[in-house]
């Protein structure tokens, strides 16, 4: 149930994000979800992609500082309160979310969650019958 998220450290200079998307485009790697966290000097791009292992290799070869981070992808119904239910389960189990990002499309809403103990996140969400994506599910999205 662990999803390998691609994390890339980017300096704050123009064109750097384009360099990154170009590599992914050239190798036909699809981006399912992306978030960009930035400070004044640098940013971290976090992406859920198809073939994360290959993507990591391609980016590293191109000189990017890249790593794979374990995250959980929760599949939620696209309705008010759905995200709250997920986060409440985590809060009730004293799990601190490091960061998360989400998007919704038609009937599906997807939340990407990162916490220190990712196995515990999986355990409590499954116990509460939340639907988690597998790495192989990413291709079909």
């Amino acid at each position, binding site marked *: 149930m662990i999803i390998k998220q691609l*994390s890339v*450290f*980017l*300096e704050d200079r123009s064109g750097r994000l384009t360099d990154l998307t170009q590599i992914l485009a050239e190798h036909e790697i699809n981006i399912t979800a992306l978030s960009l*966290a930035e*400070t004044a*000097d*640098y940013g*971290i791009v*976090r992406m859920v992609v198809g073939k994360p292992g290959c993507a990591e290799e391609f980016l590293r070869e191109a*000189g*990017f*500082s890249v*790593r794979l*981070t374990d995250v959980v992808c929760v599949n939620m119904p696209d309705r008010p309160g759905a995200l709250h239910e997920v986060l409440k389960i985590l809060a009730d189990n004293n799990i601190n979310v*490091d*960061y998360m990002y989400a998007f919704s499309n038609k009937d599906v809403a997807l939340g990407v969650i*990162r916490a220190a103990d990712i196995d515990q996140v999986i355990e409590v969400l499954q116990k509460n019958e939340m639907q988690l994506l597998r790495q192989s599910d990413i291709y079909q999205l």
Partner: protein
Amino acid sequence: MIWSPEIECADRQKLHELQSKRLREMVRRLYENVPAYRKKLQEKGIEPGDIKSVDQLKDLPFTTKADLRDNYPFGLFTLSQTDVVRIHASSGTTGKPTVVGYTQRDLDIWTEVVARSLTMAGINKDDTIQVAYGYGPFTGGLGLHYGAEKTGATVIPISTGNTRKQLQFMTDFNATVIACTPSYAAHLGESILKEGISPKDIKLRIGVFGAEPWTNEMRSQIENLLNIKAYDIYGLSEIIGPGVSMECECQDGNHIFEDHFIPEIIDPETLEVLPYGELGELVFTTVTKEAMPLLRYRTRDLTRLFVDKCDCGRTLVRMGKCLGRSDDMLIIRGVNVFPSQVESVLLEMEEASPHYQLIINREDNLDTMEIRVEINERFWSDSIRELEGIRRRIDHNIKSLLGIGAAIKLVEPHSIERSEGKARRVVDNRRM
């Protein structure tokens, strides 16, 4: 006025005799009391009795900053800590500072040379001197302070920073002299304009500036902004602090107080002594220092010496402006910074990488330093909180070692340009 005309205008033959006598005594003291120097002298086959004249200076061993580091903290002292009455410290090339000790007599001599210097700039007991050099281990503040008191002038020991308070003291206490780094003087001048202070409320007439190199363009700018005459004072803590040499009203180089500090210019490659007028590295021998006399200390400052008589009447040798360094030391806001210090901080932190670049700029006449540090491929985390934690720890460690702050910027691995595998460590955009 000339503070000590018997020395400052001395016959050069008499000065030569005085220097020779003092050098003989100094070599004997070093040989007898400092094992590191005894070893250096023995390696050259020199016994104390061999040295008869200052002309033999060229045969004596050099001292470098590395010698000070190797003998940290008190290895080069000629006497015990009991006889040392003060310790100052400045930047070393790595984590350890450069330490200097003073006996009471050393402090008296320092006071004397600063009094000579201030008098050379036309300062007298009617003046009020605002000392805006840092007070503390840095020699600028306390060095200027006692010499200024010796002249009988009124001293405002305000130290560095807090520009608004500087301007308030300057106007309310009728300061006639400002002593600080030239870049801070320019900053003060611009602040007077910004604060809307009327020029008639500023009584300044003289500026005594040092601790960093400055150009004649900067001199004109400062003189216009503050409506003063600006003089250069030169010194380094290893020799004594400010007051090693000073500009007179002719402003054709700084007179070196040769009765205490004997200068030479050497070729930094061959280490051969160069004749007067030639550009090379400035070397000093501190013949009267008691606590920590240094033989042929290599300052790394590149300049020239002139011996022709000055129109001011002084016969003391003059040194030209420092035209650069024979090492990689930077002077940032008057503070000496070695790139190797930054490297030593980074090497001690496993979460950082030792790949860095210093970028120096001057904004509103104040130096700024940015340190770009490549993130460590193995240790970086994709959490902003952790990355910011790394950045803050680097910031804190750099600041506590250098004594001045820098903007730390985390950059991608391999993003700092390397030529022939060696990174370009310093980008200095200031125009000196």
